[in-house]
């Protein structure tokens, strides 16, 4: 049911009956290492190309989530998935092998919550009994497509972020046990004129704040109603700006705990390569599905809001001097029986 301007409230509160996360070596060395289902020491996953490796990450996360739910691929009615590659090849090619009716979505790094919101809407509306939401990203495929060859020696500025290698998948259904999805807010595209592709956090922060603001006003809530609000991949620069913007716009974020997935996934003291923090579709996906939902199942916190942020640029658009349009989608999840 639509609430306010851009929020869906799910009356039946669909359940996330299972999730799976598969990550690469750097994520396995981070502080959340115990939260992931599978850690791959080889970023190539014994594949001949980075792209094939990312596809495999996607496929493994989906298969693992389905088997953890005690289901077969035939039991899944529909899947929503996407990634960062041109023409979303990672998810589409993985869907070819999974043979589940598939809707490809693109929201850049916000794809994690975009696909989850769509899957929840299907289940809540009765369009699907069981739906799958999945996304992936790979550090090397993203570097190759958006920046320079991975072995090219260019000096990155302190605002640069490190794309997470990994994939996350969630199986959504009615009933059963697991965290509930109570609402989702679909974001607007916000462009504040930032042009630097090495400063994604600053480009995406206004989109995140806009979606948080709309979510709260649509549901007539305050940050106090949440035990935790996390953004997807604003990293250190974007997080500071987001806090400042919320203060300017009178959103009392200090009433709750606010964090960012890009700040949670790596160890800033030991992993110096990450610069400002993590990014990529998998960043919010593996932190949410691996870490935050486990916290919800153990009952503390009770209600969280995940605001996944995406920069909708292409290598062509920034080479032509265009600014970076950004988007953020929020999904509200609650512990069972909240």
């Amino acid at each position: 049911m639509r609430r306010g301007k851009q929020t869906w409230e799910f009356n039946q509160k669909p359940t996330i009956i299972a999730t799976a996360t598969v990550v690469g070596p750097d994520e396995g060395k981070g502080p959340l290492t115990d939260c992931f289902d599978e850690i791959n020491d080889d970023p190539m996953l014994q594949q001949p190309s980075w792209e094939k490796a990312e596809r495999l990450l996607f496929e493994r996360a989906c298969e693992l989530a389905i088997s953890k739910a005690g289901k077969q691929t035939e039991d899944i009615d529909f899947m929503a998935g996407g990634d960062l590659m041109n023409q979303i090849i990672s998810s589409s090619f993985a869907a070819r092998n999974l043979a589940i009716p598939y809707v490809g979505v693109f929201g850049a790094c916000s794809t994690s919550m975009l696909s989850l919101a769509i899957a929840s809407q299907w289940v809540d509306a009765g369009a699907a009994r069981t739906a799958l939401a999945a996304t992936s990203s790979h550090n090397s495929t993203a570097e190759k497509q958006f920046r320079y060859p991975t072995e090219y020696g260019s000096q990155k500025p302190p605002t640069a972020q490190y794309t997470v290698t990994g994939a996350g998948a969630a199986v959504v259904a009615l009933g059963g046990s697991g965290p509930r999805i109570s609402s989702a807010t679909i974001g607007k595209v916000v462009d504040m004129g930032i042009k630097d592709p090495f400063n994604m956090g600053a480009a995406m922060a206004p989109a995140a704040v806009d979606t948080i603001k709309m979510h709260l006003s649509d549901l007539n809530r305050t940050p106090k109603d949440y035990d935790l609000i996390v953004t997807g991949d604003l990293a250190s620069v974007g997080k500071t700006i987001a806090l400042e913007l919320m203060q300017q716009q009178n959103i009392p974020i200090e009433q709750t705990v606010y964090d960012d997935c890009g700040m949670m996934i790596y160890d800033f003291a030991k992993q110096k390569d990450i610069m400002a923090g993590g990014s990529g579709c998998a960043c919010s996906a593996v932190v949410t599905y691996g870490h935050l939902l486990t916290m919800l199942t153990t009952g503390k916190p009770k209600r969280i809001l995940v605001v996944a942020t995406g920069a909708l640029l292409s290598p062509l658009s920034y080479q032509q001097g265009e600014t970076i349009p950004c988007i953020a989608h929020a999904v509200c999840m609650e512990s069972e029986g909240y």
Partner: protein
Amino acid sequence: MAKVDRQTAQKQHKQQQQQKEQANYQALAKQNEPPRPLGTNMLKAFVAGGAICVFGQAITEAMVHWFDFDRKAAGNPTVAILIMISVLLTSFGVYDKFAQWAGAGSAVPVTGFANAMSSAAIEHRAEGLVLGVGGNMFKLAGAVIVYGTVAAFVVGLVHLILKSLGGS
């Protein structure tokens, strides 16, 4: 007509407001942008670039002393050895880490050029030898060659003009 005018005026007003908001935000973003450590970056570039050049000089000296090259002929094998070392370090995944520390110090010498070529070649090996390696090898280094040639042409032209005007 008046209605259309009003609409245009409203649209313009909205655009102006948006531009103002964007400008305000960009100022805020700039404030929160951690600055590049220019001083240390320059120092590191000086040390790294200098060290590479000293190493190159050492190779030249070795060529002259032990392999009977004269100074001019020693230049080519020196460059070839530097390129080979750079390509090896690129393949082992070391050069990019060194470059993050060294910055311009590793980009400016011939080793940086070799890294730009070989990293692109390795990156696109998956797309085949022709469309991948062949087509992408000059992706980064191509600009250097194009504008290097253009600059050489312009300098040559200036030289020619000055000479024809009676210079030496």
